[in-house]
């Protein structure tokens, strides 16, 4: 596990792969709308890859394809070399919403996935306990979600995701709903946990700094129909510590490259005019 950390991108085993994935929807008027077009990339074992791009470029569509919740119109997603044809026990996702069930205690929420997968009760309890302990939530095991802060709830959601012991984590803007300081702590917790467990992750984010500090590689998507226009390898040490990475002067170079590639100034102007029109 530790050697995965030191050379994450060099790992030979491919955990998650998209092969020419294309997704078309019918829009309100019945005409076809291409959300993503011909997206191909792969994520190696233990690697963390971030996906950034303008809103509506189909990032979440890719996540749904990877988790087997939707089938691509063309192409395929593969997990551990096997074509994804439906929800898959090796993949777990986490969203911006914590999706905690209000009628379950925190411990029961962590056990939700393993309970569905019919893991024996004693083992479920054990996994929930150790995960809650790891995330400093042990004393809240018997609490209900509404009694916890947003940051704590999101940590519970991460524990629930890890409880099923997935090979691949699909993370869709997991921290965009929490305040900036909580986000930094959560990012550190996530980075540490993923590094320790040697998990593979695809992280969708709007936060360029988050992408740079958490990942081994950043993929930039174009606006719709979304396709991958740039791949930037993040060549910095300490992927398990995004706070240390923030202090690395290289971060600014990566951010500048991403801003440039995303055409940030132009994009924000366009969004404003779109808002006025709407």
């Amino acid at each position: 596990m530790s050697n995965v950390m030191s050379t994450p991108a060099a790992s030979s085993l491919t955990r998650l792969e998209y092969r020419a994935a294309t997704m078309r929807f019918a829009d309100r008027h019945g005409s076809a709308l291409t959300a993503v077009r011909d997206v191909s990339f792969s994520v190696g074992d233990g690697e963390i890859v971030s996906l950034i791009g303008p809103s509506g470029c189909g990032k979440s569509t890719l996540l749904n394809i990877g988790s087997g919740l939707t089938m691509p119109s063309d192409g395929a997603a593969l997990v551990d070399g096997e074509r994804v044809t439906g929800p898959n026990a090796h993949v777990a996702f986490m969203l911006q919403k914590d999706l905690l069930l209000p009628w379950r205690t925190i411990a029961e929420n962590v056990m939700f996935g393993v309970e569905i997968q019919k893991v024996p009760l004693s083992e479920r309890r054990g996994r929930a306990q150790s995960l809650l302990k790891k995330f400093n939530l042990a004393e809240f095991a018997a609490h209900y979600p509404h009694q916890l802060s947003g940051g704590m709830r999101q940590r519970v959601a991460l524990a629930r995701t890890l409880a099923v012991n997935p090979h691949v984590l699909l993370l869709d803007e997991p921290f965009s709903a929490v305040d900036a300081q909580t986000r930094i702590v959560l990012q550190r917790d996530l980075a540490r946990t993923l590094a320790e467990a040697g998990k593979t992750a695809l992280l969708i984010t709007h936060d360029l700094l988050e992408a740079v500090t958490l990942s081994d590689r950043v993929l930039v998507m174009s606006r719709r129909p979304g396709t991958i226009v740039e791949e930037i390898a993040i060549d910095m040490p300490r992927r398990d510590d995004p706070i240390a990475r923030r202090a690395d002067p290289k971060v600014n170079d990566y951010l500048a490259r991403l801003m440039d590639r995303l055409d940030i100034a132009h994009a924000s102007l366009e969004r404003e005019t779109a808002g006025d029109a709407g």
Partner: protein
Amino acid sequence: MSNSKNPRLSVLGKGASASLALLVAFLAAWQWGPGLLGVPTFIVPPLSMVAREFVYAWRVDHLLLHTGVTIAEVLAGFILGSLLGALVGYLLGMSRAAELALSPYILALQIAPKVAFAPLFILWMGFTVYPKILVAVLIVFFPVMVNVLTALHTVDPDLVNLARSFKATRAQIFWKIEFPASLPPMFAGLRIGATLAVVGVVVGELVGGNVGLGYLLSFGEGQADTPLVFVSIVMLTAVGGIAYLGVILVERRVLHYLPSRSLSGNI
């Protein structure tokens, strides 16, 4: 914590004492108001006269029996109606096709004033308890069914996707997500149903029969016995209140996980 609780407690205390003062004022106005305003006692009998009538009705008119029959009918109608409403709500929620096929008829039946069916049911089933129960069933059915159905439609699709991503079966999605998510709206429907069940039963008893508080009501009217009418109204209110309170107590137990404010808000 204790700091934020104290003002709330004092507000509660103020509210309760104001409530009590209003009750005393109302009872006093009932006792002495009609006399002061020169309203004859056969129009508005004062409180003491109604109280005397209550004792008389208890001893001579079998008030307890009438109340007991009404309670039994309300209970039977409420339980059957809400079970049926919940069941149909869940079935329609499961099947989009069934919902589309049945919704115009359900809407029509929902618009029809349910109490208007009372004479028909009495024609069918005679002067028994069954037509009264049936009116209550019909009237309780809709708020429960509609609330369950709406609850199923408003379950967050991402929650269902989360369960699906863990490879949940359809049954697991229902029992672990949809059913518990439907309980708070269902209880809102049950609260409405509890008070409506009394309305249904009373209308049934008014239309035909020789037992129950509704019968006592129309008997009092026939005898121009205004105090008896008042006694019946008070007892019916008590029956409805107890039914409503019963639902609240069960709701508190079942929905214990909700922040307490959202439960107490509607009492």
